[in-house]
């Protein structure tokens, strides 16, 4: 394979840590193929992000900095990315699987007439992409037969590239997007603010399910989370009930996480939930039903009432830390 183009995401003037996983993947692929690895960032007022993006070993960082890109839309971003991919001769375009990448990459792939593999875990000796199917209960080897190939990458499978010297060359992308031609208008982004670490970036996650019975239970989990500097996660049941925001959903159709420590409280362990967290290094399950399937993936299982066990944990951990 020849050149690799990774589309990186940023927030508040910084690259997202998740994107650095795709950089690692790209460097591995480019090293093997002898091609170049390039990065692309899109948005508005990208000065600081562009400077930071030079530090991760890309031959070039393409910067598409324009008013028309101030709000993300698949239509406009894919249009610009297509032009860059064509100009730099990308044989592989990729991004870390985030909501944005899941939305945009298939559209970009279609523009490039590229076949696409979603949520790639690695590449085998035949050059086939390995990816999970059936909620991660099988791993399939995928051959992409088109000249240009597209992938989203599972961020948890690749260590982020360490920051190095600002060595990459910056290339300004000439952006000409006619927003009026897109058949879509961006209206508003309704941010759900949280002081806690984002799930995909957290080293520790405390996750709750229907067993929390709502606010009261989640309050207890939040105390534990704050003590551990942890992110808070949830099952679909908890999100559907409106107890926590939707982007806390861990699972097949939510976020895939692999923190050092995942504490599941009041979670039964449905297939769809396990798909999102069974790659965690250490898993703790607290459930009052000893038959709950979550125990089958737990390193440490505790059969207990979470309303009692979680506050006790807080006390014990405080003691242990003192």
């Amino acid at each position, binding site marked *: 394979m020849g050149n690799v183009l990774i589309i990186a995401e940023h927030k508040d003037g910084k690259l997202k840590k998740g994107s650095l996983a795709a950089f690692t993947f790209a460097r591995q692929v480019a090293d093997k193929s002898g091609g170049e690895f390039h990065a692309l960032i899109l948005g508005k007022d990208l000065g600081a992000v562009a400077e930071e993006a030079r530090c991760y070993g890309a031959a070039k960082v393409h910067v598409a900095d324009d008013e028309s890109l101030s709000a993300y839309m698949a239509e406009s971003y894919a249009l610009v990315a297509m032009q860059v991919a064509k100009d730099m001769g990308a044989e592989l375009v990729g991004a870390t699987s985030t*909501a944005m990448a899941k939305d945009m990459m*298939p559209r970009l792939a279609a523009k490039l007439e590229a076949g696409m593999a*979603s949520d790639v875990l690695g590449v085998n000796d035949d050059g086939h992409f390995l990816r999970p*199917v059936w909620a991660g209960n099988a791993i399939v080897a995928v051959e992409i037969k088109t000249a240009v190939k597209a992938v989203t990458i599972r961020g948890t499978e690749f260590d982020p590239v360490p920051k190095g010297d600002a060595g990459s060359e910056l290339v300004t992308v000439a952006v000409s997007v006619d927003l009026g031609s897109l058949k879509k208008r961006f209206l508003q982004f309704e941010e759900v603010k949280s002081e806690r670490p984002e799930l995909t970036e957290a080293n520790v996650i405390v996750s709750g399910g229907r067993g929390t019975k709502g606010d009261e239970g989640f309050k207890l989990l939040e105390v534990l989370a704050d003590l551990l500097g942890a992110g808070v996660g949830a099952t679909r049941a908890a999100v559907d009930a409106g107890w926590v925001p939707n982007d806390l959903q861990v699972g097949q159709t939510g976020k895939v996480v692999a923190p050092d420590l995942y504490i599941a409280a009041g979670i039964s362990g449905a297939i769809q939930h396990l798909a999102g967290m069974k790659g965690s290094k250490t898993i703790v399950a607290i459930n009052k039903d000893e038959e709950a399937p979550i*125990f089958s993936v737990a390193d440490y299982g505790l059969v207990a009432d979470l309303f009692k066990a979680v506050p006790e944990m807080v006390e014990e951990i405080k003691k242990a830390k003192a």
Partner: protein
Amino acid sequence: MKILVSAKRVTDPDVKVRVKPDGSGIVTDGIDYKVNPFDEIAVEEALRIKEKLSGEVVVVGIGPKEATKEIRSGLAMGADRGVLVITEENLDPITVASIFHKIVEEEQPDLILLGKQAVDGDNNQTGQILAEKMNVAQACFASEIELAEDQKTAKVTREVDGGFDHVEVDLPAVITADLRLNEPRYASLPGIMKAKRKPIKEIELSAMGIDSDPKVVWHGFAEPPVRKAGIMVPDVVTLVAKLRDEAKVI
């Protein structure tokens, strides 16, 4: 308002599938098939729109002859008619999108409502590719859809990282359903009876004149890595001690 929706036949989402010992596929013996849950949500949404604005809901399924059953489930919920594209092949999303594109050209719907993801292949690609092929807007991962009175545009709320993205799309557009768009109804008994008489048009994939040469090919399956068995702890004190001294995570 004419709405095109999908009903993909997938293995029961709540059954944990296993890989065949020779890695050639997954074991399907004794597994039930259902409508892809996201497609059920798409059908439900289409029906709600129809109930408000009147119109027609057409359910498309692509798969073996047996996939008639999943289309009938959509008809039993209240959709008007079905289209079954018959193939025994495991198609890649590019081909599926090409099939939808062809059907769209014939049917000229005002709105195409798909699921965000099929829970067997977990691709999450088809709607986006279709939108590009049609050169229309996409609104993926929808948790709310509000059609304008003139039925020429729709406001869509999308579930994304860090919050909600609000966009407006011109129709026709491709919208893909996320979990919280609605809660699908159960088919009523009269609905099921009626569905038996609703028409389903059958087309052989080979007769559609589509390039169905796969661009993305599955070459063999492996089991995911298994976690090594854990232990049960008797109490919180032991748990915290293990986390500190053994796992060294706190």
